[in-house]
């Protein structure tokens, strides 16, 4: 009877076992890198919008305050998107009849909100409150980046839970005095805070990292 396996079979089998082990390690390493890469989290990827709105023009060149459009950011969870009336307060005078503004005008006429595509969407089980952050010294650009320089609005941070926790575990280096929250290009963070605020946040990190602070 012919032999079932050649003498090399044992070596081959051992090599296969080692390769499988290495393969598992390599797959783990690849998953580790993939989960942390910006593209996995859509960082830097603009969403298709109904109107080619330019933050660099409105916020950067014209210097319109963030709160002019995102008017509820200091009061409630949702920063708020501008209604067509807000847009038309200027655009009834400038760029009247521009074809790119057609969705804004029809929204104004019909009373239907413009369907913007969300760029910073958190999962439904994460409760993010804009006012809680903005009124406690977390600046817009700390999370949203230099929006005043963006032609198309993009994410600059992963917005992963680990990224949230980076700050929640030690908030002080990321905070600003309240008057600088809406400033752009402000440096340095963590300076100019009153001493009692500093002390408070050093003690608060335990409470800020409780599960039910964000998952209620």
């Amino acid at each position, binding site marked *: 009877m012919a032999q079932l*396996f050649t003498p090399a079979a044992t070596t081959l089998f051992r090599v296969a076992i080692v390769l499988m082990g290495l393969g598992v390690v390599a797959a783990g390493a690849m998953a580790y890198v993939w989960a942390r890469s910006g593209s996995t989290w859509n960082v830097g990827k603009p969403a298709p919008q109904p109107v080619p709105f330019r933050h660099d023009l409105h916020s950067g060149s014209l210097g319109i305050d963030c709160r002019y459009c995102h008017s509820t950011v200091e009061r409630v969870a949702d920063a708020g998107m501008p209604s067509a009336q807000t847009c038309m307060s200027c655009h009834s005078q400038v760029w009247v009849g521009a074809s790119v503004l057609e969705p804004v005008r029809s929204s104004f006429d019909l009373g239907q909100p413009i369907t913007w595509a969300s760029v910073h969407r958190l999962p439904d089980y994460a409760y993010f409150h804009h006012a809680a952050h903005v009124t406690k010294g977390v600046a817009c650009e700390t999370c949203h980046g230099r929006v005043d320089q963006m032609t198309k609005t993009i994410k600059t941070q992963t917005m992963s839970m680990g990224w949230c926790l980076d700050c929640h575990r030690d908030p002080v280096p990321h905070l600003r005095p309240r008057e600088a929250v809406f400033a752009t290009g402000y440096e340095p963070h963590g300076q100019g805070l009153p001493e009692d605020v500093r002390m408070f946040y050093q003690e608060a990190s335990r409470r800020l990292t409780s599960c039910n602070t964000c998952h209620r």
Partner: protein
Amino acid sequence: MSSEAQAVTNTVADVPLSRRFGWIWWVALLASGALVLLLGYTLISVAILGVGVWGVNIPFVWGFDLINYAWWIGIANGASLFAAILVLRRHDLRTAVNRFAEGVAFFAVICAGIFPIVHLGRPWLFYWVFPYPATFQVWPQFRSTLTWDFWAISTHAIVTSLLWYVGLIPDLATLRDRARTRAGKRLYGVFALGWRGSVRDWAYHQRAYRLVAILVLPLILIMQSTVAFEFAVTLVPDWHETRQPLHFVATGLAQGLSIVLLVAVLLRWGLRLGRYIDDEDVDLLGRLVLASALVSGYLYLDEIASALLAEPVPQEATFNRITGDYAGLYWTSIVYSILIPQLLWLKAARRSTVAGIFVGISIGVGVWFDRFSIIVGGLQTDYLPSVWRTYAPTLPETGLFLGTLGLFAALLLLFVRFLPVVSMFETRHDEHEEASS
């Protein structure tokens, strides 16, 4: 090899190597295959629609999912504890029943593992309970029963599959040598890991087999206790008891042994293996089942005794379970897992196939009702009277349970078809010993 030993190898090895297997096997496989399809359907429906398709609601956050998990884990634990003890004691019974006790344990672990995963609600994120460097930068909650489930089931699956596989290796080599086709030879050959049957091979094999068997002993007690702790660590009055692990270990052992008995008599009858699983073997197995049922009975008495000694709230909770809305579950469990097994005092019953099947199923049913009674009955009078209500499983839950029964049956059927169900090398070894003495 003596002619007698040759005969053993023939009868047992012929089964996996023959091309035909009879229509009963096909009918059974089709029936269990249909149940596996039902399992797939219920799993997909719960994944898409969520756990709302189940009858669970506050306070009954655990329903069929945990009942059946605890039940299957009990079978797995009982069967593998039994198999491991036989290997370590080098008991004669091991030749007859070890292989399928190991198989039963392994397949039951697979069935058990399905429930905690689907009951997560977002089952595709089950790996979150594993401590890996996640981007959310938090470790799993090690005080959570979910992480305990993860470690319990994965450890259990690894150890029981090892016990089963290590025991199979010499017999896989026999199948390799006797396979009719070259592809069959090569397939069995790869899984036989180059077994040559040399003294060195045997020495290593014995060491490995016994090592895994020793691992099983503490593992089983820890695993079954883990399941029990999932109840005991909560503040539910009826569950918050230190006797809970003991109750689960003892009733689980009875249940595992009864399923081994059931499968043993079925195989003996179905594959005509009467010579290898002989009357003495079945008799001994019957005595073990009876003894374990008596221990379970003792623990039921202990439950009542400790309730009498307990403070008013847990006392009321326990008696509510025995006499309340769900009293039927409790008493069904007593009848099926304690009273009916008393049949086995009769020698005729221990040796009869029908009685073996009857008692085997009866204890399985009884322990299932016991788990149902603990999980649902224990929750019926929670601290908040406003949530006092009743629980009943919905069709998707029942389908899930039937589906795992089908999966278990299908795996067993494939096992008897393609692998030797009685350990050929152990049987040969026994016969050599007898011949030389």
